[in-house]
Structure formats: structure tokens, C-alpha cells
């Protein structure tokens, strides 16, 4: 049965250290995070990390499980997020959110945290040095870094059913999730502009890796929650988005799709004849007209397949309701925006300028190219592409468009600023963030599913948080405001 679609977005940012003899990206990432959390740092606790566990119940021979880099900078923020150095990138993992709109808010808060970090790093950098971060997923030279989504899924649902329904889903949702890219990589030649940053990097349908031979379905089985009850679906196919509507649709529609799969509501099978090439084909077809071959011999365009999913979702909402997908407000908002978006993509996609990232970038770059008579291969257009994602407010082309009133927002800036500090009230992130804010000196370590507190007497105490839907403001708000010390909190929790 469908469980509440708690979700979160992890973003690895591109990072550059300018003006340094050794432009070491690990050092640059560490400086950013140290700069931001100078006041207070709580260490991340690695006890429950097991990224090599495979959802299919085995580990493939030769599969490369990701390493956990415990020596790198790692911090927990009062909004419940994790902010750390992953490989050679600063990564912001949003707190657990209870719906797509909240996920947009905490994703945007992450951008502001990175912008603040760049400012903070200036204080410790030498003359003429600057750290710049980009919220994109590729350097245009065959190197990609991810923006991963996570969704809470019922453990009893067979992984095979998830895979069958999700592969065509991930291939076709690109038409509104893409962040747009000039050129092709990893063997994709003669591409002027394509819909996504990431499609060129997927080489398998299903697998455990995330850094090589990337699979459309990632099988990492690390629930960070009660493993008998839950699965955490780790989605690696998405682009990092700047347009809030793109993020809302990416997370919101995927949550509804997952709920339908969990409730075994999908009555149609859209299995593609060849999903890996289809991934690229969809991204490369800005006309959105090219048909995909399905395994049953029929053909359909990505828009047609998305209409079918939407039709099913409307029926699902009527029969089951959308309580697990943000309820009547957010769930319904997502359905309506999804429908409007498909209509627009079909009739006049340019009307989505300022709504979806790829269309916004495409329209901007087209206008620029038309004015100066440039080809897609011109470095100037590649620069515009890159600088669209620059996180510095004064340099970001995306932020210029926002300032010019050309981008639709679904959050407001006051809420975003608040979300940099305050946790979502509706998930266990509330407990994590609030305890950290109240007693920063007593929180020795934290991770997704526990907190370790120093209550003044030996030993250190671990508070398990295996249920992501508990620890909310409704659940523990009154308790937290009624206790004065961590020790009192522990006593009350155990009493």
C-alpha cells in the first residue's frame, strides 16, 4: 500500500577555485562548508551508512560500491539538511520533506546556503581568489555530477514492479524535468541543444553504480529508516533544476507515479523496446515529436506516454485520493500543473519560458544566438549555458531572469530564507533540526535516522529515528518546548 511520499533532493554543485596555484576542488568544497558552518558544526555519524547494499538483494560481481569518505567535511544544519564534501563537490542534501512544494522550498534554500557559503569563503581566501559554484550536472567535457531524488516507498512492493513502471517514467518525464544543455557528451555527437544535462550519461537500465555505467534505475538499498517497512528509492536520472515549477513537477509527478505503482494501480505497461537509447533520444529531440518504440511493438511520443500516466493519475486521485502525495492542496496542484505543462509542450512549448528550465534556457540562448548570428557550437552559447547555473546572484543568468520578473515562482523569498534555518515541521527533520538548534553543544553526531547526544553523564546516548513520519512538530513540538535540557529530553522520551 502506498506510504506517505516523504522525499528529499541531494545536489552536488560544480565548484571552481579561481586564482589559486592549486585549484583543488576538495579543498574549495571544504572551505565553502567550513565558511558557512563556522559557528557550529555537528559531525555526521556514519554508523548506519551502507551504500553498497543492493535493492535486488545481492551485490553484483565487479560492481563498484561508492566509498564513504569519512575524512571529509561533513555537517548537519539546523534546517535538518546535511552539507558536506562528496568526492570533489560540495553537496547539499535537503531535509526530509513531506510533499513536492516543501521539497522545492528546501532545494531553493540549498542554493541560498551555497551563495552564502561563497561569501563566507571570501573571508578566508587569498587576494584575487574566488570560489564559484554552479548548480548544473555536467562540465560539457564528459564529466557529470548528480542531483538525486529520494522517495519513501513501501518495502513490500516488488522491486521488479517498480523497475518495470519506472523506466518509461524516467525516460519520458525528461520533457519537463530537463535543465537544458548546449551540445552532447559521452558519444552524443552533432547535438545543438538538448533537453537534459544528464541523459548522455546513462548506459544501463538497472544497477548499483552512480559514477560509471550509470543506470536509469539505481538499486542502492539504504533506507535510512526501518528496513522492514520502507525502501528509499534513490533516483539518479534527474537534472538539478533552478526553475521552481520544474522541481515541483519532477518531485510531485514522480511521487504520484510511485503511489500508483505501490497501490498496483497501473493498468498499462509502457515498457520500452530499448530504454537506454530512448533516454538520449528524448533528450535530443527538442521538437518533442519523435516516437519511441515500445516493447509490445507499438510506438508513442514521450508526450503521449506522459498523457497516459496523467490519465491514470487522475483516476487514481479519484479512487484513492492524494493523501500520501501532499493531499488536496499540493497533490492537486501537481496534477493541474502537469496537465497544463503537457498541453503547452504539445501546442506551443515556448509558452513555458520562465516555467521550465530547458525551455527558459533554450529561449534565452536562441534569442542571443539570433541577435549575434551564432551557431550552437559557439563558445559564447556554452558560456551562457554555464552561467545560467552560476549560483552567485550577481552573475547568475537565471537570477537575472528572476529579477526581470520572467520566471514563475511557487515559493516566496521570505519562506526560502526561513527554510535555510528552520526544519520542515512535518517530518523527522523537525526533531533533528530543532534539537540541534536548541542544544548545539550537546549534539555529538547526527545522521538521517539517529541523533547522538551528550547529556553530561557517560555514556553518549543515541536516539533512534527509524520512522521518518514521526518526530514532527505535531508529534514532539510540545515535548521539545517543555524540556530545558537534553537530559530532560532523554528522560521524557524514555519515560
Amino acid at each position, binding site marked *: 500500500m502506498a506510504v506517505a511520499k516523504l522525499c528529499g533532493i541531494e545536489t552536488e554543485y560544480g565548484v571552481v577555485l579561481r586564482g589559486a596555484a592549486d585549484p583543488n576542488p576538495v579543498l574549495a568544497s571544504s572551505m565553502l562548508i567550513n565558511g558557512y558552518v563556522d559557528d557550529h558544526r555537528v559531525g555526521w555519524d556514519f554508523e548506519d551508512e551502507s551504500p553498497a547494499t543492493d535493492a535486488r538483494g545481492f551485490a553484483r560481481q565487479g560492481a563498484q560500491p561508492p566509498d564513504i569518505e569519512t575524512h571529509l567535511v561533513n555537517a548537519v544544519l539546523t534546517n535538518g539538511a546535511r552539507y558536506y564534501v562528496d568526492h*570533489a*563537490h560540495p553537496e547539499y542534501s535537503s531535509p526530509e520533506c513531506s510533499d513536492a512544494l516543501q521539497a522545492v522550498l528546501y532545494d531553493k534554500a540549498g542554493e541560498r546556503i551555497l551563495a552564502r557559503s561563497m561569501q563566507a569563503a571570501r573571508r578566508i581566501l587569498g587576494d584575487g581568489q574566488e570560489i564559484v559554484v554552479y548548480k548544473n550536472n555536467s562540465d560539457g567535457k564528459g*564529466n557529470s*555530477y548528480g542531483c538525486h531524488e529520494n522517495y519513501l516507498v513501501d518495502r513490500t512492493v516488488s522491486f521488479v514492479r517498480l523497475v518495470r513502471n519506472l523506466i518509461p517514467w524516467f525516460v519520458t518525464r525528461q520533457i519537463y524535468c530537463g535543465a537544458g544543455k548546449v551540445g552532447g557528451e559521452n558519444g552524443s555527437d552533432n547535438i545543438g541543444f538538448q533537453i537534459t544535462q544528464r541523459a548522455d550519461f546513462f548506459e544501463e537500465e538497472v544497477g548499483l553504480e552512480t*559514477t560509471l555505467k550509470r543506470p536509469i534505475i539505481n538499486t542502492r538499498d539504504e533506507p535510512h529508516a526501518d528496513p522492514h517497512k520502507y525502501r528509499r528509492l534513490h533516483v539518479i536520472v534527474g537534472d538539478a533544476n533552478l526553475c521552481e515549477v520544474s522541481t515541483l513537477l519532477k518531485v510531485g509527478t514522480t511521487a504520484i507515479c510511485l503511489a500508483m505503482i505501490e497501490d498496483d494501480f497501473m493498468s498499462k505497461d509502457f515498457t520500452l523496446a530499448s530504454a537506454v537509447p530512448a533516454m538520449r533520444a528524448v533528450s535530443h529531440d527538442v521538437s518533442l515529436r519523435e516516437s519511441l518504440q515500445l516493447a509490445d511493438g507499438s510506438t508513442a511520443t514521450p508526450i503521449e506516454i506522459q498523457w497516459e500516466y496523467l490519465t491514470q493519475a487522475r483516476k487514481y486521485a479519484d479512487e484513492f485520493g492524494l493523501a500520501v502525495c501532499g493531499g488536496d492542496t499540493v497533490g492537486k496542484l501537481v496534477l493541474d500543473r502537469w496537465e497544463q505543462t503537457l498541453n503547452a509542450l*504539445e501546442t506551443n512549448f515556448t509558452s513555458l519560458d520562465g516555467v521550465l528550465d530547458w525551455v527558459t534556457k533554450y529561449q534565452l540562448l536562441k534569442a542571443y544566438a539570433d*541577435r549575434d548570428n551564432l551557431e550552437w557550437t559557439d*563558445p559564447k552559447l*556554452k558560456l551562457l549555458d554555464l552561467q545560467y547555473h552560476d549560483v552567485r546572484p550577481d552573475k547568475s543568468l537565471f537570477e537575472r531572469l528572476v529579477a526581470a520578473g520572467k520566471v514563475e515562482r511557487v515559493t516566496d523569498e521570505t519562506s526560502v530564507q526561513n527554510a535555510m534555518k528552520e526544519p520542515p515541521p512535518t517530518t523527522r527533520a523537525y526533531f533533528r533540526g530543532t534539537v540541534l538548534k536548541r542544544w548545539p553543544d550537546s549534539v555529538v553526531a547526527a545522521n538521517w535516522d539517529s541523533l547522538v547526544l551528550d547529556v553530561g553523564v557517560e555514556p553518549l546516548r543515541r536516539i533512534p529515528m527509524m520512522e521518518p513520519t514521526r518526530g514532527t512538530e505535531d508529534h514532539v513540538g510540545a515535548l521539545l518546548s517543555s524540556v530545558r535540557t537534553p537530559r530532560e529530553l532523554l528522560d521524557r522520551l524514555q519515560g
Partner: protein
Amino acid sequence: MPEREQIRKPTPQKRDEQVAETAAPTETSEKLKSDLDDLLDEIDSVLETNAEEFVRSYVQKGGE
């Protein structure tokens, strides 16, 4: 697929907007063009210099 046909119909509200847009084409399109020109000029003012070198030097390590 009758349900799909139903879903795909544009809402009446949208049709009204389209009619309104076509009613005064010249003024609107000239205003849009001048807005766009201003925006492109503004973008020129913030673009990094030496596009070729800048793009070439943007190299990242793979992540994830």
C-alpha cells in the same frame, strides 16, 4: 481513449487569453522585442570575459 481527449482540451480561459493576445499585435510585440533587447544587453554586461577560455577551463571531477 476518451479520457485522454477530455484531459487534452484546453480550458476556455486559455482561449480567451489567446484572443486577447492577438487583438493588439503590434504594440505588444514591439514592447516584447525591446524588453528582450534590454535583457540581452544586461546579460552582456554580466557575462564572463573570454568565453572560449572560460568554457575550456571549466573542468569538473565526476561525482556521485
